[in-house]
């Protein structure tokens, strides 16, 4: 990546025009690889397909990425970064709400992203399992991160009476539910499952007062 030179048009956020242009190009490739791999599957995907979906040149592709896997991994990381920020900010914004409601808003946010961007969801949830060992590791790390995210409300609601392992299990369960729907092209239905997903363990865990 070229070192951004200082110029007078530098964006107020500190991003130079060059970097912004670079990022826009990458973004276009990310959308293309998500669309292409949810259409034809990651394994069957050639760089030529990504170029076709992006409407960009091979030269540009190889200026930005080493190969198909590199493009996929960067797309995955970018998507996860966005999800992490959106879900995290939801959690912090809702600080004054009861714990269960806060968690519900976060899960709702995640499901809304999947529904609004089904191809990206397909990339993050389904294709990531087929994109080689490195992608798999990233997925495992992401799940561990979500488990750590639930760890705070878990300990707040249950202290030592609920095992930490349950966070890992809850995230795995939600992942399985997402996977099945997204793989079948039913990402749009996910927001309607919010209540059910909350009642399948996560809600009971974080709602210490709600128990019958």
């Amino acid at each position, binding site marked *: 990546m070229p070192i951004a030179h200082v110029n007078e048009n530098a964006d107020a956020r500190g991003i130079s025009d060059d970097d912004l242009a670079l990022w826009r190009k990458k973004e276009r490739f990310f959308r293309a690889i998500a669309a292409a791999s949810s259409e034809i599957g990651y394994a069957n995907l050639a760089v030529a397909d990504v170029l076709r979906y992006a409407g960009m040149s091979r030269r540009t592709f190889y200026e930005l990425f080493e190969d198909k896997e590199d493009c996929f991994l960067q797309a995955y990381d970018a998507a996860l970064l966005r999800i992490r920020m959106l879900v995290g900010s939801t959690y912090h914004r809702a600080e004054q709400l009861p714990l269960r409601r806060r968690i519900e808003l976060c899960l709702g946010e995640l499901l809304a992203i999947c529904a609004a961007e089904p191809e990206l969801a397909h990339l993050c949830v389904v294709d990531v399992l087929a994109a080689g060992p490195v992608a798999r590791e990233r997925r*495992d790390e992401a799940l561990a991160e979500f488990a750590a995210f639930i760890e705070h409300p878990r300990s707040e609601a249950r202290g030592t009476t609920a*095992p930490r*392992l349950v966070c890992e*299990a*809850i995230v795995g369960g*939600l992942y399985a539910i997402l996977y099945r729907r997204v793989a079948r092209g039913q990402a749009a239905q996910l927001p309607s*499952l919010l209540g059910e997903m909350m009642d*399948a363990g996560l809600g009971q865990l974080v709602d210490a007062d709600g128990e019958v």
Partner: protein
Amino acid sequence: MGGRDDERESLLTGPWMRPHSGQLPAGRHGLSRDFVAESQRTRVLDALVACVAEQGYPETRVTDLIARSGVSRKTFYELFADKEECFLAAYDAAVTLLMGGVTTAYESEDEWIPAIRAALAAFLDFLAQHPELTRLCIVDVHAAGARALARRDAAVRGFYYFLDAGRGDAPRALPGLTAEAVTGGMYEVIYGRVLRGSTADLPRLLPELVYWALMPFLGHDTAATEMERLREQQANGRSPPVAAAARAAGLQEAVDGEQLVTVPPRRSGRRPKPGDSGA
């Protein structure tokens, strides 16, 4: 993995199902065709399990399976259309064996909580005692194509039955996807341990996994009580469903005097509730 081919038991048939051991003598031996084919099939499946454990599925070639099992190429292709068919057969055999042990353990108890506890204990013990099969079923299955994945999904759904029986004991109506969430969570926890090579430690997770299986159905308090009880037992060096776990693992001798247990057919309906409410 210490054991070598010539001394270890067949992974897929186990000592109690296997009609004989080792490679049959070449030439005319007066054994029936089916008997020979079955023996060859078992050897090829065992070879597949061993090869996949060592090299992973993508790197395993039919040539490796032939070399390892000692059958001819012609025989291999009489038994299996290709490597994938062979993998699927091994996967199916492993799942049948596993589900047999789990079902037996589950059926050995009348009430849902002990039944789930016994089933989970049998499940974890089976995995711990068959690390190569476990890796094949939990990790390698993801690298073996779409048909293998479909088998995996079906196998996972097989566990819904045990869990959904808990609906009768639940204090309130539960969402339809509860069993899906619980099995998905179990899978992820186990997958992580298998990937890190700590398959042998899985039985130690019994108290926490029992908590996870019970909590969505019966609530935190009941699940936590059961977990604490199991932790205490574990600390005292006792694991409660010894008989069921041993049966599942094929260790008949551990079950004194008990007859060989065949796997009962799965009941299709909901498990009858013991009393009105167990919770």
